[in-house]
């Protein structure tokens, strides 16, 4: 036995490294095929899951909202509807949408207030100088095409969907509040009990079912218009054709998708 071994060794060495290399290449090939099969398997699984009963394809949509300042009566029904629909805490700091009142006084002072987000209406404005002009501005997440909040999230828990809605992954949010700091529109808040960041979702659960967001549904004067950007048959595109449109803080290049008509220059 002991004498035989070296001869076989030599024999293999004589015939070169060919069989060894072949074995190695075969092993590599087998490994590659297995990985490919595993990948394919998971892909198939994912496709099966995506084929729900509604067959909603996010790639066919791209959402935005229009707000007509001249129609807003500051009744706060949108704030109420948002809180009821999305189970938003009814405290003075948690709002996915809220209504601000701007009062520009005759002496040039601009006062902005939003008592309880406007959910209970607004008291008459006070001030020494007379009122030059005054109006309401509904606010919500602008669902920026270039969102600063998504950039700063350290765990990738906030993201933009294919249909242009910025969402928060509640299971992976660590509640670090970077996104709340980064949002230039103040549209995010920390949920007081869940300790995760929350924001307007454009009522994504309603939108995929073919309904409009709750705030749009209840707006009694039609000041809020929901629809798709860049689709001519969308009510939002009609709104954008017939009005002079502005966005909030355009100099920040966040490319917001909430479009305001008849917006006053004082609005920030």
């Amino acid at each position, binding site marked *: 036995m002991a004498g035989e071994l070296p001869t*076989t*060794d030599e024999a*293999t*060495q004589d015939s070169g*490294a060919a*069989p*060894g*290399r072949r*074995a*190695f290449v075969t092993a590599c090939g087998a490994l590659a095929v297995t990985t490919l099969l595993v990948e394919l398997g998971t892909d198939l699984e*994912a496709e099966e899951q995506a084929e729900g009963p509604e067959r909603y394809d*996010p790639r066919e949509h791209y959402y935005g909202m229009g707000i007509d300042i*001249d*129609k807003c*009566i*500051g*009744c*706060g*029904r949108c704030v109420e*509807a948002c809180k*009821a*629909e*999305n189970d938003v805490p009814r405290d003075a700091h948690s709002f996915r949408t809220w209504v601000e*009142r*701007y*009062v520009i006084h005759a002496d040039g002072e601009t006062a902005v207030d939003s008592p309880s987000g406007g959910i*209970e*209406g*607004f008291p*008459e*404005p006070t001030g020494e100088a007379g*009122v030059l002009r*005054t*109006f*309401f501005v509904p606010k919500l997440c602008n669902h920026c095409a270039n969102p600063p909040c998504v950039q700063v999230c350290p765990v*990738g*828990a906030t*993201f*933009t*969907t*294919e249909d242009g809605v910025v*969402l928060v*992954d*509640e*299971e*992976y949010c660590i509640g670090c509040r970077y996104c709340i700091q980064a949002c230039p529109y103040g549209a995010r808040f920390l949920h007081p009990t869940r300790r995760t960041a929350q924001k307007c*979702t454009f009522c*994504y*659960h*309603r939108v*995929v*079912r073919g*309904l*409009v967001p*709750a705030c749009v*549904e*209840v707006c*009694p*004067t*039609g000041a809020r218009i929901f629809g798709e950007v860049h689709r001519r048959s969308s009510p939002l595109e009609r709104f954008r054709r017939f009005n002079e449109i502005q966005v909030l803080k355009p100099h920040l290049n966040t490319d917001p998708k909430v479009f305001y008509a008849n917006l006053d220059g004082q609005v920030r």
Partner: protein
Amino acid sequence: MAGRSARRWVAAVPQQVRHLGAIFALLVAGLVGARQVLVPKTFGERGHYRAAAVDSIVAQEIGYAGHAACETCHPDIADKKGQSYHRGVACEVCHGPQAAHVLAPMDHKPPAPRERAYCPLCHGYNPSRPTGFPQIDPVLHNPVRPCISCHDPHDPTPPHPPESCAACHGEIARTKAISYHAELPCTQCHAVDRRHSVSPRQQRPSKPTTREFCGRCHAQDADSPPEIPRVDLASHGPGYVCWQCHYPHHPEAR
């Protein structure tokens, strides 16, 4: 045969390379394993996020059913409301979120606000509201009586047209009441068509269009009581109609 030759091939590789290879293989396996454990299951399927997060957001239940759902069962009310001033007001503005009522109509009855405090959320006077939106002063407008005793919320045109201008234009009436023009009736300056009280936006009252109109009281040679302030129409602010600078309902020159 293959196993044996592989063992020989491994034996031919220098020992230090074998050890390095083992460490390298361990590192790669560790990396792959760590990725399997750390990267969420559905991450990257649709983008740089967990696709399952979207599914859990989509799974949220709806509260507001939408006005189309209401109209399928209540076409009579939808018809009535559709021809009234409240045609743009969705049912769930006043009746609250009613998806539960749509699923089980008998178990969940929608509430209807009947108290007087509810309607002024939209119709109470507030200077920030857009001009022309119908507003009342809740303190002065038929105090204490609930709104629905005169107005049907599904067709809110008042049963009889308002009798005084102040019923709708309370803010102007109150401003004028403390001004020098307190004694003047609205019709002194505005020609008001009778139909304005029924269709306020179709029949708008007129406004004075000439300087001579104000001059009938305020010109130097006007036939009016001597305590009324006079101006020289030829030299005082030529080119403007008086109300472009002076607010007639509170005409202090500022």
